[in-house]
């Protein structure tokens, strides 16, 4: 099945991008690998028939958030990281603790699974018409709260950068 191959390919790309993000020595490379991961995740969204989310994901994450990260990395002049002092025990501890957590959570996730196929109506769940219906009817309060959050973020960002602006 072509979708199965697509899934495995995208899964490989996203995990590879994640690993490379963490292990790259150059922070700019990290950002680029994370963008690769985000594109792979957008591909997963398309596979899962969440077309609108896939578009929004690319626009917001790859187009805006990662550009902001690149800005900061270039502005802080992090061409190469000042030799990170990582002890061997620190590396091993982080790898072991993350690995154990993964083991436990995968064990939980593999427990109760049912056979069968996803409901047919779920094919249309990601269409922008249906998403808008749910978003503006059932999720009215979170939607309005989002604007409060934006207001807070704007004021916060301007306030934090204000000192630099005046000087």
């Amino acid at each position, binding site marked *: *099945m072509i979708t*199965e191959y697509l*899934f495995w390919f995208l899964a490989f790309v996203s995990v590879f991008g*994640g690993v490379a*993000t*963490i292990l790259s020595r150059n*922070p700019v490379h990290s950002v680029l690998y*994370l963008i690769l*991961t*985000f594109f792979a*995740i957008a591909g997963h969204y398309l*596979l*899962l028939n*969440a077309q609108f*989310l896939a578009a929004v*994901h690319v626009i917001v*994450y790859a187009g*805006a958030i990662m550009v902001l*990260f690149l800005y*900061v*990395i270039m502005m*802080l002049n*992090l061409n190469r*990281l000042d030799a*990170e*002092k990582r002890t061997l025990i*620190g590396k091993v*501890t982080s*790898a072991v*603790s*993350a*690995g154990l*957590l*993964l083991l436990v959570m995968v064990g939980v*996730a*593999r427990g109760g*699974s*049912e*056979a*069968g196929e*996803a*409901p*047919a109506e*779920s094919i249309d*769940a*990601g269409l922008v018409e*249906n*998403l808008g219906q*749910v*978003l503006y009817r059932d*999720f009215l309060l979170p939607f309005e709260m*989002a604007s409060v*959050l*934006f207001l*807070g*973020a*704007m004021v*916060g*960002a301007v306030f*934090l950068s204000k000192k630099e602006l005046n000087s």
Partner: protein
Amino acid sequence: MELIPGVTTEHYLVLSLILFCLGIFGILYRRNAILMFMCVELMLNASNLALVAFSRMWGDTGGQVFVFFIMVVAAAEVAVGLAILMLLYRNMGTTQTDVLNKMKW
């Protein structure tokens, strides 16, 4: 449950968990606040992937609306977080968390 031919919910859950634990590993492993922040983004995306898979599983658009709101929160978080990091760099001259240990107990 087969979400798309040949791929079950479990596949997506395990993939999402792998990405999430990669994010946790990155936060523990890296010593630079910006890279740790990027790992937080990776973890948010892992949870988004699981939510979209569940939304497909139940045929419920609500899960995708959650993902939408998570993206909104991520954007706001990045705006304020990077401004804080910027200020930190201006004041302390570094974003390495092993140097910024004044509040360490």
